[in-house]
């Protein structure tokens, strides 16, 4: 795993001792990442792995945000650019770009994100519902987590992995 993540984890360790959040069921563990200007997060258990970008193969007749498929140790996995999916302009992949491979049941896909932030422990009580303006079941947003001065949008992994074209 990347140094970055190790850093994050060690930082996380410090945090833990500071806030003293216990390992109880009321705590959700998330991994945070940045797309555009916003910080998002998904449950840590939904993440199969986080990898540095490598070559992929374009697939025809799919929306722009499905950039293609790549080979992860023998499995062919779709790659989805979350920037494009969220309607942001495309950005060159840089040093901090990562592929997050997420799994929900049998569905699996890699997601291109701008950069990772950190692993987050957040109390369930600190997670609010998705804003009312976002309608019904269609939303990809599971909730909004508040931590110190930050607001983190928690995404639904099953929705991310749902084919919508």
């Amino acid at each position: 795993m990347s140094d970055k993540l190790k850093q994050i984890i060690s930082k996380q360790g410090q945090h833990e001792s500071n806030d003293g959040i216990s390992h109880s069921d009321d705590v959700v563990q998330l991994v945070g990442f940045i797309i555009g200007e916003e910080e998002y997060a998904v449950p840590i258990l939904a993440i199969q792995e986080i990898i540095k970008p490598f070559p992929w193969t374009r697939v025809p007749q799919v929306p722009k945000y499905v950039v293609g498929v790549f080979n992860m140790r023998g499995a062919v996995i779709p790659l989805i650019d979350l920037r494009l999916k969220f309607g942001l302009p495309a950005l060159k992949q840089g040093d901090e770009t990562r592929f997050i491979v997420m799994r929900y049941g049998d569905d699996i896909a890699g997601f291109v994100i701008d950069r990772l932030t950190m692993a987050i422990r957040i109390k369930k009580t600190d997670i609010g519902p998705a804003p009312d303006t976002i309608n019904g079941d269609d939303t990809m947003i599971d909730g909004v987590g508040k931590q110190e001065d930050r607001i983190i949008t928690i995404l639904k992994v099953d929705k991310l992995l749902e084919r919508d074209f």
Partner: protein
Amino acid sequence: MDEFQEILQDFLIESFELVEKLDEDLVELESNPEDLELLNGIFRVAHTVKGASSFLNFDVLTHLTHHMEDVLNKARHGELLITPDIMDVILESIDLMKALLNTIRDTSTDGGIDVSACVVKLDKVSGGTGDVQSPVVEAAPVEETPVAEEVTAEVAEDEPDYDNMSPDDLEAEIERLLQERQEEDKQKRAAKIAAGEDVVSLEPDEAVEEETPEPTPEPVATTPVPVTPTPAPVATQAPKGDAKAAAPAKKAATVEQTIRVDVKRLDHLMNLIGELVLAKNRLIKINDDVEERYEGEEFLEELNQVVSIVSLVTTDLQIAVMKTRMLPIGKVFNKFPRMIRDLTRELNKKMELQISGEETELDKSIVEEVGDPLVHIIRNSCDHGIEIPEVRVAAGKEETGTIKLKAYNEGNQIVIQIDDDGKGLDAEMLKAKSVEKGLITITEADAMSDKEAFGLIFKPGFSTAATVTNVSGRGVGMDVVKTNIEKVNGIIDIESEVGVGTSMKLKIPLTLAIIQALLVGVQEEHYAIPLASVLETVRISKDEIYTVEGRSVMRLREEVLSLVHIGDIFEVERILDSSEHAYVVVLGLGTSKLGLIVDTLVGQEEIVIKSLGDYLKGIEGVAGATIRGDGGVTLIVDVIALMDIARNVKSTVMTDNSSAAQLTLEKSKASDYCVMIVDDSKTDRTIMRKALEPLGITLVEAVDGQEALNILKAGDHNFDAMLVDIEMPRMDGYTLATEIKKYNRYKNLPLIAVTSRTGKSDRMRGVESGMVEYITKPYSADYLSSVVQRNVNFKAEFL
């Protein structure tokens, strides 16, 4: 005779399997004598073996199992409690049964083992009579029976425990039972002669004997007649005997040892092999690379050997695992004789089915897929192909129509051929019908070859039958044929002659998971096309392509082939300039053909089909993906879908709109200009940078051709010019220039060679590869600056 052997094999395999299980169950039964479930199971084993062995004329075995069955039946109805003593008898009988089965396996007869003692014990247990004649006696002429009676009667009298019946009654009872038994034997033999399939119904009605209130004289261990059945008496017993007696010499001791394995395990194994094949491909690629780089080194030979061994073993392993999944196609063919018999009656026609090659093996999943199509094809042949007898006679043919069903291997494919000598397909009639039904237009019909017209029968909604019969005519069946065969990547080939007959060939790949593919390149992408669908490849130049009604076509020998560019189907971005030449991959599917234009042919490779997963399933034209030797993913072309898509794709191949899409943005400041410096020497790069910095333009550096190309491809900058050194590692200046010129976008990018090579030929090469200027080292800073300014059209106001 073969049929008999086949049944015998199946019988033995099944019986051994059952007996294996029986031991376990019986042991458990002893500790658990009340378990009805268990008893029923054991009873069924005896019952099954008895049924099958009586069908196969193994009288000794039948005799034994029959008595076992009696005992077990009593136990199962609660009339008998299984005591250890009884269990001993049962176990003994099972041992005998095993011995008999072994004998059958080795000699194809069940002679040479004396079962009478055990049978007597069994009979005693079940409270039976002295009806313990050995099979020879049963089958022997009636005159012999009195002997048996006498002995048994005698024995019966010796037994005081069961003397609640008078000897006369006893004799009458025995007489009755014997007659019954003989009657059964007659029936059995009759059934055998008829070669019926239903074994169960042929069994003697054991209920009669069970219900008879049988006296139970205990026969002494000395049986009335010693059991010495030899092939000779057997042969006289039934017509089948000949086959049996003759067979053992040839086919003795050939019981295949089998294990039943969950298909899932095989699938898993197949997946693993798939991975291995991919790794092998990768190894071969690496080997090639290493070979190139370290030519002549000693270790190469060793490496080569290892690679060949790995690849050889992998291939063998793959074949071996594939074979475990293979089933003989006979499993599917078996149901057709019956079907034809039924259809003969139903349609009032005379038909005969000839089957050959039923031992040809196919992957299990494919065998399952071809069943339905074959039913439809054969029904179709019966209904539409074969004429009624009067018509046939009038046409000078045999009254009985013949349908030949044949399977054989052809390269990597299995061919299933269905021939009939019926009336054949009439191309004109097919066309007319299709036009009438609105399936095709008149112009399409006129342009159709006979073969294409035959293909019409596979169109949904097409039927040539005037009326809908029970058998066919709904216009669904043949459509199913096409769908199912295409699902397994098969192709259909029809040949037919009016009045003579129709021949249909289904060509099916051996397996689905690993296939041979042709790899083709378009621009910078690669695609894999299943080789089974590729008829040929042709190299053409652009002017061989004509446009007819907005679609590209070419002349291929005597045919006109419609063309489609793979780039149009897969929305490939045209980055590279298309060359004068292209390759056409001629795809054949069923009766239709299509030419697929590609830029390059990469080669043939064994690929493992992987699914794109749920998220990307159902992409038109893509059948899946495979992982290549370099670890990259290559998409596999779905030829069936491609043919459909091709109909609706407007060709843009030849409309050469490569108007060098160069983004000539308006320059508003000096730094909008961008120049790349490519040189492997840091000093040289610094000298150039120093010379150009005063202009205030943006400078990007690359240390060799490869890096320069990557920077260009990344497209982060819009370069206005490039300064290129010639001598560089990895990729030299000439190669770089040639590569760059392939891209439409950089066609007009000025390339300036900066080199210490001053030879004339060097200059010539520079020009050939597309360099516009040639600066020789050493040069003055001002000179370089002015050359660059000239080439990028530097505006004087920025100075």
